[in-house]
């Protein structure tokens, strides 16, 4: 599935919820199924900055697709990471670079988009795009 399709799928899923509590519960659920980073990769260079809980992100290119793995001490952060990974993991660097981020607003996580937010969402997105850029250049 392409990035837009996955985003639409997620928007559809989240649109069923009536309040933040259900959205958060779902996100936390998603966090449980995240593709976990191996503990050997939980190193400082994979830490995302500006996050109050530790948040690791790792990328690997496989068949011109970027495979992301992540983990966090905090389960809400992990849930947010899971949503991002569902959108961006297993996509080509080019598609990732061109991707639009409207869906974050549409699923009610806009508040997390502030650059000063302590969950590191913005930094995580930057890091994902940065990996994509690094791999397109090669």
């Amino acid at each position, binding site marked *: 599935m392409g990035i837009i399709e996955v985003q639409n799928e997620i928007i559809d899923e989240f649109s069923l919820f009536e309040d*933040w*509590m259900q959205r*958060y*519960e779902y996100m*936390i659920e998603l966090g449980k199924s995240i593709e976990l980073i191996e503990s050997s990769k939980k190193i400082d260079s994979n830490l995302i900055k500006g996050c*109050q*809980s*530790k948040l690791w992100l790792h990328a690997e290119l496989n068949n011109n697709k970027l495979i992301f793995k992540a983990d966090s*001490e*905090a*389960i*809400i*952060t992990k849930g947010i990471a899971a949503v991002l990974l569902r959108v961006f993991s297993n996509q080509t660097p080019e598609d990732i670079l061109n991707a639009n981020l409207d869906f974050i607003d549409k699923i009610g996580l806009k508040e997390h988009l502030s650059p000063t937010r*302590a*969950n590191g969402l913005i930094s995580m997105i930057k890091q994902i795009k940065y990996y994509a850029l690094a791999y397109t250049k090669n």
Partner: protein
Amino acid sequence: MTLDVNKIRNDFPILKRKVNGCPLVYFDNAATSQKPSKVIASITDYYENYNSNIHRGVHTVSQEATDAYENARKKIQKHFNAKHSEEIILTSGTTHSINLVANGFTSLLNSDDEILISELEHHSNIVPWQMMCEKNGAKLKVIPLKDNGELDYESFLKKLSNKTKVVFVNHVSNALGTINPIKKIISESHKLGAAVLIDGAQASSHLKADLQDLNVDFYTTSAHKLCGPTGIGMLYGKKEWLEKLPPYQGGGEMISEVTFEKTTYAELPNKFEAGTPNIVGAIGFGNALDYLNEIGFEKIEAYESELLDYATTRLKNIPNLKIYGEAKNKTSVISFNIGELHSYDLGTILDKYGIAVRTGQHCAQPVMDFFGISGTVRASFSFYNTKKEIDYFYESLKKAVAMLS
């Protein structure tokens, strides 16, 4: 006579706001306090009616601003019972105050000297001294914590020696709320000739320090912690000490003569107040003290300790909730974790209920290291908080735990 909290709440405009659709419950008072209308109005009044640069100004507006600024210094002097008004240096806050002192001691200490610092300190009372030690080679020794969040007083006595030149302890710990036995610490330190700096940033909104009675050498606080404005704080220093310390920043106001060959410094307090000060900040600081004194510190202390007891009892009903710091003497701060839940998660969900708490390490990493944790949730109560808010906090916390488990 107890405090009329409903009346008091009306003094604080922000307490009427909603957060995420719920009434704001502000339990982040240890980070900064809210401001009463009286203080806010004094700021507006300054800017609308007598804003001017101070000192040396001959004209009326400058004169009025200068008088208001110097009057604020007197209010602060009186509140803390300092002997001389020039012992009150207006700074931009506790961090600035401590750096001023640490900088001053750079040239007064050498590698034979030791300084003694508590494990309970805020980074602002650690890093400046580490920076000083790098320059002059003085040794930094640490007064350790005990499991209950109190300082190990026996160990303090053992580490104190005639090599010890300065001792730094906070009056109240921001991470745990522990009230330290500073009067004893000061008198023991003096016996061995050590100066004592007490960081009062966390104490000043809860209790009134009598500086002459404490006989302390330096005492610091920040106005934003005690219902005053941001960007202003104080350094109290005994006159003898302030005269001994070299100036910190150079600039306008702090000099008496300037030529390119030689500059002579002004007298206290100007020697340490270089540049245009935070004039409106000082005025707001003075008015914040007036406001607190009108309520009365006995009432504030009694009410806040009631809130603390009430909240502690309620929170202990939550399974796996562990409180860090249960000193016999503590201010209305509860630092806790629940099972394996991350403080960030709890804080985020509480925010959804309109509850503001602080999460993380509270600029006191050594305290977190002591307990082997990465952070806590910290709920800190002020005299404008209520038991009803604590009930709501308790219920919301239970819901958060259910969601996150």
